[in-house]
Structures are given as structure tokens and as C-alpha cells.
């Protein structure tokens, strides 16, 4: 069996694991740092909106051009410094559209293009074009996004609870901010493809968070019936329990996108494909990261503020202190019968909460007498 399979086994038994919740402050800090960078990039550099959003100039060449579409694309990009959209028309002329150009600049580009394409500059017609993605489409997309977020928060609040809904929303905003920030920093042009990539991320990020939350919900349903683990402990356990799944899913989702980004981009240089795959790559990675490092610890934080959970934590800590004083390993104290969710190896799976006495490790692997 592969390494990761072994890791899965040991994660399951709780032999290894990472204290996601305990170290949350570090990850919060990192995320805040990245988010601030992203926002700074956004405000300082701004987004480079493509022709579909802001319009630009369209040049129409004379009929029967010998230059190919990709050649013309190259010329246009060189002349303007922007991505260009080139289409060959039925009569053999080329329509070259370039974003973000005003009237005075369009003349110099026209001259340059004419030279590159080997035609007289008078024969090229220049026109300003409006955005094909009007305000209407953009506004409707925002509207849809807002409605979706409200609905999903309501749904998560019902299916799980409001704390999880809130955490999922924070994780979602986190992912989108990072992705937009990368766009601003790299300076890629924002195309409809980018927007759609962003919407895909939104769906994926939530999807990933929900999978982790589902396991969290399952494992915490009887939390008040025991005094051994705090909410944070169990939250941590559930992240570690789904870690292999998270890694696998992320790898499988990222592999094709990475291929698009590195192979497609490597051979072709910048292009539409590259733009989209970059936004997807960053977004998917951020989505996987945030559901583990941000969303779940955030739920734990919110939950621990609950009086019920506070009381539980107090009981657990008191018990641990007592056990430490006696130099005895803590035995699981499961109060209910038929559910074997809290039998020994489940309980042993919680790894390294900060307050845990070192002696606890000795208890692992010992029969607890709970198995039937």
C-alpha cells in the first residue's frame, strides 16, 4: 500500500496528526497576511479589465489578408501591450479587438499594425467598441451571487448550524479575495472566463467545506455525553480523519488544471487558457486550504464560546488535571451504550491538544473494555 494509504491508517488510529485547531492562530495569521496582500494589490494595481467589460478598439483590415490569425494576434499584442481578440471574417479580412484603448492611442497602434501586416494604414478601419459583457450581465451575476450566498447560509444554518454557515462564508470570501488579489498582482486581463472560473471556485470551495463539516457534525453529535474531549479536540480529529480524502480530492481536481496551466502555458505562453487555469488553480488550492485551516478552526472557536461547550471544556480540563496529578492515563469515559463512535481507537485519535498531559500516550492501544 502506498505511503498515503499508511498515512490514512495512522491518521485513522490517531498515531499521527496535525493539531489544526491548536495552531489555528498561525494559520489565521497567514491567511490575514495573504488577504491583506491581495486587497493591497487590488487597491494599488486594480484589476485589468478585458475588452468584454470595458470595450476598446476594433480594427478591420482590408480583404484577403495573408497574415494568419495567430500572427495578427501577436502583432496586435506587441503593438498595444494588451491581449487581443482576432477573428477572420468571411471576406478574408481580419477583425482585431484590443481592450482598454482610447482614441489617441488607437492611431499609433493602427500605424504599427499596418506596418506589421504590410498594408497601408488608411486601409485599416478603426472603431471604438463597447463591452459585449454589458453592465447588465455583470450586475446580474453579482445579484445571483448575493442571492446564492444568502440561500446557502440559510441552508447550512438549517442542515448544520449558524456557526458553520458563518465559517463557510468566511472561508468562501477568503478564497475569492485571494484569487482576485492574484489577478490584480499578476496583472492578467479579467475576461468572462475569469469570472466563470471564480464562480466555479465558489462552488468548489463550499463543496469542500461542506464535506469537512459533515464529518465534524457527525462526530460531535454526542459531544456533551462525554467528558474526555473538548469541541476543539473533536474538530481536530475530524479534520485529520478526512485529511486523506481532502488530499486525494484536491490532487485529482488540481492535476488537470495544473496540466492546463503548466503544459498549456509552457508551450504557448500567455493566453486565455492560462488566465482561466491560473484562476482555477489558485482558487481550488485556496478552497482546499481554507476548508481545513480556516473554516473548521473558526467553527471550533465559535463553538467554544458557547456556555455549554465552555462548561464541557472546564470539565475536560479538570479531569485531565486530576488524571495528571494521579499520574494515571486517562481512561475514556463513555456514558452511552450502543453507539461505538467513542470507543477506544476513536478516542485515541485526537492528537496533541495543547493541554494534553504527556502521559496520555501510554494509554493508547490498550483495551478499554468498551468493545463488544
Amino acid at each position, binding site marked *: 500500500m502506498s505511503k498515503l494509504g499508511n498515512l490514512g491508517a495512522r491518521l485513522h488510529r490517531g498515531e499521527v496528526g496535525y493539531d489544526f485547531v491548536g495552531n489555528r492562530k498561525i494559520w489565521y495569521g497567514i491567511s490575514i497576511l495573504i488577504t491583506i496582500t491581495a486587497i493591497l494589490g487590488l487597491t494599488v494595481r486594480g484589476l485589468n479589465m478585458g475588452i468584454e467589460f470595458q470595450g476598446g478598439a476594433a480594427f478591420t483590415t482590408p480583404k484577403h489578408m495573408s497574415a494568419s490569425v495567430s500572427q495578427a494576434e501577436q502583432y496586435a499584442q506587441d503593438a498595444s501591450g494588451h491581449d487581443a481578440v482576432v477573428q477572420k471574417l468571411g*471576406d478574408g479580412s481580419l477583425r482585431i479587438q484590443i481592450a482598454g484603448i482610447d482614441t489617441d492611442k488607437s492611431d499609433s497602434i493602427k500605424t504599427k499594425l499596418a506596418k506589421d501586416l504590410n498594408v497601408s494604414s488608411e486601409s485599416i478601419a478603426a472603431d471604438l467598441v463597447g463591452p459585449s459583457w454589458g453592465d447588465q450581465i455583470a450586475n446580474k451575476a453579482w445579484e445571483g451571487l448575493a442571492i446564492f450566498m444568502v440561500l446557502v447560509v440559510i441552508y447550512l444554518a438549517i442542515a448544520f448550524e449558524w456557526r458553520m454557515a458563518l465559517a463557510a462564508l468566511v472561508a468562501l470570501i477568503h478564497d475569492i479575495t485571494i484569487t482576485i488579489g492574484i489577478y490584480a498582482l499578476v496583472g492578467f486581463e479579467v475576461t468572462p472566463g475569469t469570472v466563470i472560473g471564480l464562480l466555479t471556485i465558489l462552488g468548489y470551495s463550499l463543496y469542500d467545506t461542506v464535506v469537512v463539516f459533515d464529518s465534524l457534525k457527525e462526530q460531535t453529535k454526542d459531544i456533551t455525553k462525554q467528558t474526555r474531549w473538548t469541541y476543539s479536540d473533536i474538530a481536530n480529529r475530524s479534520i485529520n480523519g478526512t485529511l*486523506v480524502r481532502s488530499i486525494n480530492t484536491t490532487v485529482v481536481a488540481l492535476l488537470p488544471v495544473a496540466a492546463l496551466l503548466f503544459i498549456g502555458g509552457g508551450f504557448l505562453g500567455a493566453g486565455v487558457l492560462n488566465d482561466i487555469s491560473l484562476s482555477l488553480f489558485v482558487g481550488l488550492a485556496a478552497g482546499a486550504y481554507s476548508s481545513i485551516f480556516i473554516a473548521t478552526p473558526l467553527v471550533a472557536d465559535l463553538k467554544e464560546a458557547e456556555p455549554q461547550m465552555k462548561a464541557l471544556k472546564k470539565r475536560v480540563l479538570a479531569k485531565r488535571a486530576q488524571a495528571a496529578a494521579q499520574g494515571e492515563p486517562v481512561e475514556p469515559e463513555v456514558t452511552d451504550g450502543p453507539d461505538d463512535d467513542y470507543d477506544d481507537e476513536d478516542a485515541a485519535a485526537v492528537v496533541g491538544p495543547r493541554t494534553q498531559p504527556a502521559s496520555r500516550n501510554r494509554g493508547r492501544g490498550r483495551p478499554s473494555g468498551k468493545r463488544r
Partner: protein
Amino acid sequence: MAAPKKGRSASAQSKPGRSLALILIAIVALTGGMFASGHTTPRLGIDLAGGTSITLRAVPEKGQESAINKANMDTAVDIMNRRVNGLGVSEAEVQTQGTRNIIVNIPKGTNSEEARQQVGTTAKLYFRPVLATEASVGASASPSPSASGSASSSPSSSASPKTTASSSKTGSATPTATATSQGRAASDALKADSTPSASASASASASASPSASSSSAASEAAAKLEAQYTALDCSKKSVQNTAGKGAKATDATVACGKVSGIWYKYLLGPAAVDGTDVKKASAVYNTTTAAGWQVTMDFTGKGGDKFAKVTGELAKNTAPQNEFGIVLDGQVVSSPSVSSSITGGSAEISGSFTQEEAQSLANMLSYGALPLTFKEDSVTTVTAALGGEQLHAGLIAGAIGLALVVIYLLIFYRGLSVIAIPSLLVSAILTYVIMALLGPGIGFALNLPAVCGAIVAIGITADSFIVFFERIRDEIREGRSLRPAVERAWPRARRTILVSDFVSFLAAAVLFIVTVGKVQGFAFTLGLTTVLDVVVVFLFTKPLMTILARRKFFATGHKFSGLDPKALGAKAPLRRTRRPSAPVDPKEA
């Protein structure tokens, strides 16, 4: 615990063959349908396949040269966008060029003739009082409901909304041939079956009366028009578009119009209200009276006065002269009847509209409010907006990516890849076939963003069986043998899959309903792949797992099955020795 589990596994194990057969039949049927329909590839969007580009030039009305401004052009773009995109999945593009041109790009394979008509019927809109109307019975002599077939739409002032058309009709005390309901219309038509002239005679009397009321001067022009009306046959295709063309707003005219699928001919008075008098029109769903979809219009101040005056006059008449025809480019698009003067500057047109009908009527009404017409400047083909090599490289990269996924699954899940890879494959086939079928079906066109969405969908599809497999492995680690492990893992995995897919589907549904254009196309792809994910995992992955769990190779946990209890670190139920404690794993961070 044991008893219900047994029951569950027994019932689940009786089904897997059936589920597999079901999905295989579905695949074969869909693929067969795809080949039978002759559309074996999905229709590609303009960025991937190119298409037709139509350039339209705005022509202002006389004396309104200032009408060519950014606001009006943008409105025209919005309206054309909505018209040409229909369901929003056809990926057409509309943009302005220069100050007075609009470019409409339509992907290859679209009925460009139809699209040209959609963007080209650029609306001169008038409200004209109806003087007479009659169904045009074609050469086939198929009987049709008489006179006021327009019963399907009746306007009512917003203050007192009428619920149905029939109520206003019966209130107007006209026991004539007005078909008040579909049922009546049908029965009338049946009665008329033996004597097709019956309906004609009913409307003949109607056509006689307008000449008396409208032309007190009894001018020659009126008589000529009368003759023209009598001769008019709106069942002829060539006539339908031309009959009312070029009529001046101040003259009476004849026109054709289609109501509930039947062509009617109309004799219409001079325009009472101009299209430019409409400030705004929109389609709304009336929830308060459950009247269904209706169109609301807001008039300008002047238009409201004119409308109040004309409706006040019309309301005094009997059918069909209490109707006004909404005439768009010489064709009657709707002819609601009026029961009282409508004041207040706004009106509703209600009737048994579908959402689409209401939307398109509202579009036409707002379109007519623009003092612009558009002339087709040029129609030409365009190549793909994305370079051919981009698509090519994308496909190669995608294939490499998929190969990597397969290799990863093989290494990590070994024997389980027998389930994982076919699951991905079934998903891919279903997605492809359905997309290919939707091309001709609803005008669905695949563009680059949709392709990217499909690539991400690989991740979501894979996640479903990864969640399932990990659950099974967890159960095996608990010391269970494979078959109970599968049956015990399934309900938990199923819940996770359903909950997370529901969130994805919610995103898709909301975006599809609320948005327009490409975003709608994307939402459609997302929703489709999410639904297919659920279908595949329920009907393919799970049953196949159940069946394979019976095989010795898997059941005994062969080294290469991906389910080797030893490799998974399963705890033998009776083993109570201490496990070797593992060193800190390098991957843990």
C-alpha cells in the same frame, strides 16, 4: 446494530445489477439518440468555433438624430442580447461598435436566418384600435375559432386587475362569436367543421360595421382599405410579414398577427399611442391574483394621457372594436381588449401567457420605446475568437491532466481503480452525450469557460467516490470484512455526497435563474455535471462496488485490491497487542 445492518445490506445487494443495467440502458439510449439525431458533437461557442457576425446600423427617427446616444444603444444591446440568447446557453455576443453600430456574433450552427430576424425586427411599435379582425383560414380549410381569438389577452387597469380574459369578455355583453375559452373555441371550431363558411359569415358582419363607424367621410381610401382587408389572406407566409409594412402612423392599415398559433387579419385604425410613449415594460409574475405571467407598461406623461383617452373610447365599443392591436413592425403581436379607461400612466396586459411570451412581449414593448431602427449593414462569417492552437493545446493539456489523474488513482486505489476510472468514464460519456443532444435541443453551445467548468467537475465527480472509498477503508480499519464495510460505509458516504452536491446544485440553480448570458451557460454546465455526479455515484459506483465486494480478489483484501486490511492498518478484532508506534510522518504538515 446487527439486525438493521443485515437488512440494509440484503436489500441493497438485491439491486446492484438492476441499477447497473438501468444506467447502461440510459447510456445506450442517449448515445443512440445522439447518433440518430446526427449531432454527434456538442455545438461549440463562438470562441471555439466561430460563427456569423451581423453588423447593424442604428437609424434614428426623423427629427430625433440625438436619439443615437450611449444610453439608447446600450438598451438596444441589452434587449438584443436577451432575444438572441433565448435560454441563455447559446453563447451569442452583442456589443456596440463605434457610435451607431451594433455587432451581433452568433455561434456556428445557430439558425442565423432566425437570429437575423430576431435582432432585425427592430420595432416600430404602435397601439392601434382594432376595427375588424378575422381568422385567416388557410388553403387547408382547417376550421379555427372565430373573431376574437385574442380572448387570451385582456388588459386591465392596475387598479382593478381582471383575472382572466373570459370575465372581461362576458362583461362586455357581446354574445357574438367571441370564443371565451379554449374549450369553447374548440367546440365552436368543431361545429364549424362541416361548414367552414360559418365563422367567415360571423366576421363578415363585423367587418361591415367598422366601415360605418370609422369612415363617416366614406372616403375612397377607406373603401380601398376595406377591399384590401377582404382580400387579405394572412395564412400565406409571404403576406404575413409584408401586409402591414410601411403604413404611416396616421393612416388606418391592415395587418396580420398570430394569436395562440392562429393567424388573424386585422383592420386597424390610425395609431393612438406610439411605441416611444412607453417608458418601460417588463414581464412580471402576478402572485397576488394568481393570474400568471403578465406584462406591465409604464407610459410617459404624454403617453399615459393618450392611452387613457384611447382606452376610454375603446371601452365603449363592442368586440372586436374594444380591442387595440399592439403592432410591431407591421405585425400585430397582441390585441388585448379593454373594458374601461385606463388612467394613471401604467397598464397591465394579462392573459394566459407563458413566461417566455410575456418576456418577449415586454421586450418588444421596451424595444419599441427606442426611437431607433436598425439596418443590417453586413452579415459575414467569423473565425473562432480563440486561436486554433489554443484549443489544440488545451485539449492536449487536458488529456495529459486526465492521464495523471488515472495514474494517481491507480497508484493510490489500485484495484479500486476498476471502479474509479469507469465511474469517471461514465460521467464523461453522459456529460458529452447530453451536451451534444442539447445543442439542437435548447441551443446549448459549449464555450471555453464551460470546458474549464467540466474539467473542475472531474474533481467533484472523483470526490464522490473518494469519500465513499475512504469510508469503506475506515470501516475495514475497524476490523470489518469488506461486504459489511461497504454496506455500512454507504449510508454515511451517501449523506456527505448529497449534502455537498446540494450546495453545488443550489449555486447552479440560483445563477441560472437570476443571471443572463454566459454566466447562465456556465450555471447550466455546473448543474448538469452535479446532477450527473449523483446519478453516477448512485447508479454506477455503489452497485459496482457491491458486486465487486463479492469477488474474492476484493473480499480477501488482495495486495493489489486497494483494500488490503493489513496495508490499511486494520485492527484485527481479536488482536490486542500494542501497535508499533509510528514515527512522525513527514507528510503530516
